[in-house]
C-alpha cells in the first residue's frame, strides 16, 4: 500500500528532555554502518585456494579496490541483529496500517518455501525435473480462479503495482485487438497512487471521478464521463475508504455498455475473500497482493507478488509464461514462439514469477481452506467495525458504517487542538503501537486508516482502543504550553526521535562516504 505525505510536517520541533549524550541508551545500542566496522585481515567466509589457471577475463578485469569492509561472521551477525532491534514488525507489535494488511505471517509458510525441492531449483531446468513446482503454480492458479470466479489468471507480476500494469496492459491489448483506440481511463479520486501512475505509464490519460458524500463513486459523475474513448475504469473495491462500492454492478454495466473494461484494484480482496467473487461483480481483471490477502511477509518493503485474474474477454491477452496441464503433466508456455501463447501481450519479467511467494501463499491458503478464508474476511471486517464502533464517539468518522476491513477517521475531532494526525501517530509509537496509515486516502482530511486484520485478538483491540481514546481526550483537553506540547515531542522512547526529512530531500546523502563516523557512534563500536 502507498502512503502520502500530505500535511506532514517533515522537520521536527526542537526536542526537550533528552540531551544528546551520544551513548547507548540501556540496551538500545548505537550501531555504526557496516563500512565503519571493517578491518583488513578479517573474513566472514572460508573458501579454498584459487587453482592455477590462465585467465580468460580478457581486457576488462577489475583494477583497484571495490571498497567493501572485511569482517568476521560474529561481527556481521551482531551488526544485523542490532539493526533488527531498531525495527518493529507484526511479530512484536500491533501494526494497524490501513490498506497494508499487516497480519500474522505463519512460519509454516517460511519452512515450506525453504524446502530444497523448491528453494534450490533453477527456473530453466528441463520441465521434467520441475513438475512439482509447476504443479504448485497450477494449484495456486486454481485456487485464485475459484476464489474469484474468474476465467483466467497469471502469476507473472512481481508485485501489486506490476499486477496493475499487467491488467491494464491486457486491457490495452484487447482494445487493440478490436481495432479500436481508446485513450482515457477513469480513476476515482480516492485511488491508490499506483492506479493513475500505471494508467499514465501505459499512455492513457487519467480522468478523475469524484466521490459522493458517502465515500463512494459518484454514479452520475461517472455516467457523464463515459464515451467511446474510455478504455476502462480502475476501481478499488472495497475502496480505499474501507467501504464496499454498493453500485459496483451498475458501474460495471455502465463501463461495459460504453465498450470499456473494469479493472478492479484487488488490494483489499482480503476483506471479501470467500464472501464475494469479483466475477459476480462484473470485474474484467483484478490483481491480488499475495502479501495482503494471503499473508506472505512484507519484509520491510518486498518482495511482493501480484497475480492477476481475468475475465473470459481478457484472459487470452494474459502475459507469459503460464502453466498448462496436459493430462498429468504440467507444461510451461514461456515464449511467443509456442502456439499455445496465442494473443498473449508478452513477457513482463524474467523467468516464471515470484515462486517463493507462491509457495507461502498456497501454504496459507491450504491451512485456512475454503471455510477458513471466509472466516478471515468475517473476522477482519468484524475487528474493523468493532474499532469503528468503539472510537467514533471520541474521534470523527467521515462516513456512516458499516465499514469493511478498515476503519477510517478524519481529523475534525482535532480541530483547534493544535494536534495533528501525525502527532497522534507519533504518540502511538510511545504507547507501544505502530501507527495506522495516515493522510490516506486523500479525499478525507487528516485521515486515520486503521486496519486491524483478522489475526488480532479482542484483548489487543481493547488495549488499542483504550489508548486511542486516551490520546483523543488528551488532545481535546489541551496540551498546555505549545513549546512543551508532548504531542510535538513524540516519539521519545524510540531508537531515533523525529527525523529531518526536509534536509534529507534538499541535500540528499544516498550512500556512505569514507569519512569519520560521528563520535558517539565511533565510541559505540564493539
Amino acid at each position: 500500500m502507498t502512503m502520502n505525505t500530505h500535511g506532514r510536517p517533515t522537520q521536527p520541533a526542537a526536542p526537550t528532555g533528552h540531551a544528546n549524550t551520544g551513548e547507548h541508551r540501556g540496551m538500545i545500542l548505537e550501531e555504526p554502518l557496516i563500512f565503519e566496522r571493517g578491518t583488513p585481515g578479517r573474513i566472514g567466509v572460508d573458501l579454498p585456494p584459487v587453482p592455477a589457471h590462465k585467465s580468460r577475463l580478457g581486457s576488462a578485469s577489475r583494477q583497484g579496490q571495490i571498497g567493501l569492509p572485511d569482517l568476521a561472521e560474529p561481527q556481521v551477525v551482531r551488526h544485523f541483529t542490532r539493526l533488527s532491534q531498531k525495527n518493529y514488525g507484526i511479530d512484536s507489535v500491533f501494526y494497524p496500517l490501513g490498506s497494508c494488511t499487516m497480519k500474522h505471517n505463519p512460519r509454516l509458510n517460511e519452512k515450506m518455501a525453504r524446502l530444497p525441492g523448491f528453494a534450490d531449483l533453477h527456473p530453466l531446468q528441463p520441465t521434467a525435473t520441475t513438475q512439482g513446482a509447476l504443479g504448485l503454480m497450477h494449484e495456486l492458479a486454481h485456487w485464485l480462479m475459484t476464489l474469484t470466479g474468474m476465467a483466467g489468471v497469471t502469476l507473472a507480476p512481481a508485485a501489486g503495482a506490476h499486477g496493475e500494469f499487467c491488467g491494464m496492459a491486457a486491457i490495452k491489448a484487447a482494445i487493440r485487438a478490436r481495432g479500436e483506440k481508446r485513450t482515457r481511463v477513469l480513476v476515482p479520486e480516492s485511488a491508490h497512487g499506483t492506479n493513475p501512475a500505471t494508467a499514465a505509464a501505459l499512455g492513457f490519460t487519467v480522468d478523475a471521478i469524484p466521490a459522493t458524500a458517502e465515500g463512494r463513486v459518484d454514479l452520475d459523475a461517472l455516467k457523464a464521463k463515459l464515451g467511446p474513448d474510455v478504455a476502462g475504469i480502475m476501481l478499488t473495491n472495497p475502496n480505499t475508504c474501507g467501504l464496499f462500492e454498493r453500485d459496483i454492478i451498475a458501474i460495471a454495466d455502465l463501463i461495459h455498455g460504453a465498450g470499456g473494461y473494469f479493472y478492479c484494484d484487488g488490494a483489499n480482496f482480503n476483506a471479501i475473500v470467500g464472501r464475494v467473487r469479483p466475477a459476480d461483480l462484473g470485474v474484467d481483471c483484478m490483481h491480488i497482493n499475495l502479501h495482503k490477502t494471503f499473508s506472505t511477509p512484507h519484509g520491510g518493503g518486498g518482495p511482493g507478488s501480484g497475480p492477476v485474474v481475468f475475465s473470459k474477454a481478457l484472459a487470452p491477452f494474459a502475459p507469459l509464461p503460464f502453466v498448462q496441464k496436459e493430462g498429468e503433466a504440467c507444461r510451461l508456455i514461456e515464449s511467443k514462439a509456442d502456439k499455445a501463447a496465442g494473443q498473449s501481450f508478452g513477457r513482463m519479467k524474467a523467468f516464471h514469477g515470484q515462486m517463493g511467494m507462491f509457495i507461502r501463499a498456497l501454504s496459507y491458503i491450504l491451512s485456512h481452506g475454503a471455510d477458513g478464508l471466509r472466516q478471515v474476511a468475517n473476522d477482519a471486517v468484524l475487528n474493523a467495525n468493532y474499532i469503528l464502533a468503539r472510537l467514533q464517539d471520541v474521534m470523527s468518522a467521515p462516513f456512516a458504517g458499516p465499514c469493511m476491513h478498515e476503519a477510517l477517521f478524519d481529523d475534525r475531532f482535532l480541530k483547534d487542538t493544535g494536534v495533528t494526525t501525525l502527532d497522534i501517530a507519533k504518540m502511538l509509537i510511545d504507547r507501544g503501537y505502530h501507527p495506522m496509515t495516515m493522510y490516506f486516502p486523500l479525499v478525507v482530511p487528516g485521515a486515520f486508516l486503521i486496519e486491524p486484520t483478522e489475526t488480532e485478538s479482542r484483548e489487543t483491540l481493547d488495549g488499542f482502543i483504550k489508548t486511542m481514546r486516551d490520546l483523543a481526550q488528551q488532545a481535546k483537553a489541551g496540551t498546555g504550553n505549545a513549546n512543551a506540547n508532548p504531542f510535538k515531542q513524540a516519539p521519545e522512547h524510540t531508537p531515533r526521535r523525529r527525523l529531518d526529512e526536509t534536509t534529507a530531500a534538499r541535500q540528499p546523502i544516498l550512500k556512505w562516504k569514507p569519512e569519520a563516523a560521528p563520535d558517539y557512534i565511533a565510541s559505540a563500536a564493539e
Partner: protein
Amino acid sequence: MRYLPLTEKDRTDMLAAVGVASVDDLFRDVPQAARLTAPISGLPNHQPEYEVDRHLSRLAAKNVSAGAAPFFLGAGAYRHHVPASVDQLLLRGEFLTSYTPYQPEVSQGTLQMLFEFQTQVCMLTGMDVANASMYDGSTACAEAVQMANRVTKRSRAVLSGNLHPHYRDTVVTTADLTGFELTALPPAPAGAEDLAKQLTPETSCVVVQNPDFFGRTQDLSMLAEACHAVGTLLVVVVTEVISLGALASPGSMGADIVVAEGQGIGNGLNFGGPYVGLFACKEKYMRQMPGRLCGQTKDAEGRRGFVLTLSAREQHIRREKATSNICTNSGLCALAFTMHLSLLGETGLRHLAALNHARACQLADKINAVAGCSVLNETFFNEFTVALPKAAAPLVDVWAKKPLLAGVPVSRLHPGQAGVENLLLVTVTELTTDADMDALIAALKEIAQ
C-alpha cells in the same frame, strides 16, 4: 483455526458492541446478487499444519533440486553458497514482518540496511547513486530504458542481441505497451556485434550486457565514448553479480545507468524468484530514477538517522506524473544481499570471483579436449557457450534423467532462432565439484562417440 484468535464469545460480544445481529449484516453493502451464503464449494476446508506440510513436501519431492545432481545452469540465475547466518538473520521477525519504513523512528533497522545496500551497489557498479532495489534485473532493465528516454527526451532504444532474451522480451513488452521505439539486434553467439553502428542522434540508450548472454566479457569503454558523442546513454546490464568481483566495474567503463540481477549474492535459485534488482546511475540523473531511495539525515537530537527520501518522484505523491508506478522494492532479498556481501567483504568477494573464474577455466579446458565439443568464447567469467555436435535441448532432457543438469540450451531462450540449436550455456561456481565436472565430461564423451 490456529491463526484466528477471536473466540465465538468474542464474536458475539463484539457484534453486540457494533450493534448488529450477525456478521452478515456487516456485508449488507454487497449487492444481493453477489453475496455468497456459504464457503465456496469444490475447495477443501482448513487443514492441520502437518497435512499442509505433507502436501507441499510431496510436491517439492517431485522436483530434482540443483543440489541433487551435477549442476551447470546459469543464464541469469546462479547457484552460489549462501552462508547459514544470512537466512537465520532474515527470519528475525523484526525484518521479516515489518512494513516499508514509513515511520522512520521505528524503522531504523530497515533504513540503515537500505543505506548500506545502496552504498554496496554503488561500490560494486562504480556508480554515484543506487536505489533501494527493484523487483529483479529484467524489470530494472526495462525501467532503465524508460529512464534513459526521460533523461534524453528521446524515444528510440537499442538492445544488444546478446542481452538475456527474457530481459529483451521484458523491454519489448514495455516498448510495445508504453510506446517507444526499439531496435533489438539478433543474437550474435560468436560475438560479432557493432553496436556503435546503430547510434543515431535519436538514440536514447544502448543496452548491453556484461558478461553477455553467451558469457563473453567485454571492455565497454569504446562503446561508452561512442554513445556519449551523440548524447546517448549507455545502460550496462549484469546478470551474474559475482562477476563484479573480478571485472572492471561498469562505471569505470563509462556506463550511465547500471542494472543488475543481485540474486547471486544472498539469494537462492527459488525457481526464478523472488530476486533483487540493482539499479545505479550517475548523480546527475538521480532525480529521474525509479523506485525507493533511502537517505541520511539527523533526528531531533542531532543524531544520524535514515529516512526514505526524494519521494517527490514517486507515485504516492506524483500519481500520474510519477517516474514509475513502482510501490514496493525487494526489501528482504536486498537484506539478504547486504548481509551476504558483508560476510564476503572485499577479500571474500574477490576470492569468490577468482575461484568461480578459475574453476570455469578448468572445465572449459576439459570440454575443449572432448572431440566434437568446443567452447565458443575467448573470454568469459564463470559461464560460457559450448558448441555440441548435435542439438543441445534433447541431450539436456536425456541427461536430466541421470540426473545430470548440464546447462541451459540456448534454443530454450531463443526458440526458432537459426544457428543456435547446438549451443549449450554452461556455468561453474564454487559449488561445482570435480566429480560434477567429470560427470559432464563423461556425458559429452558419450555423444561424441
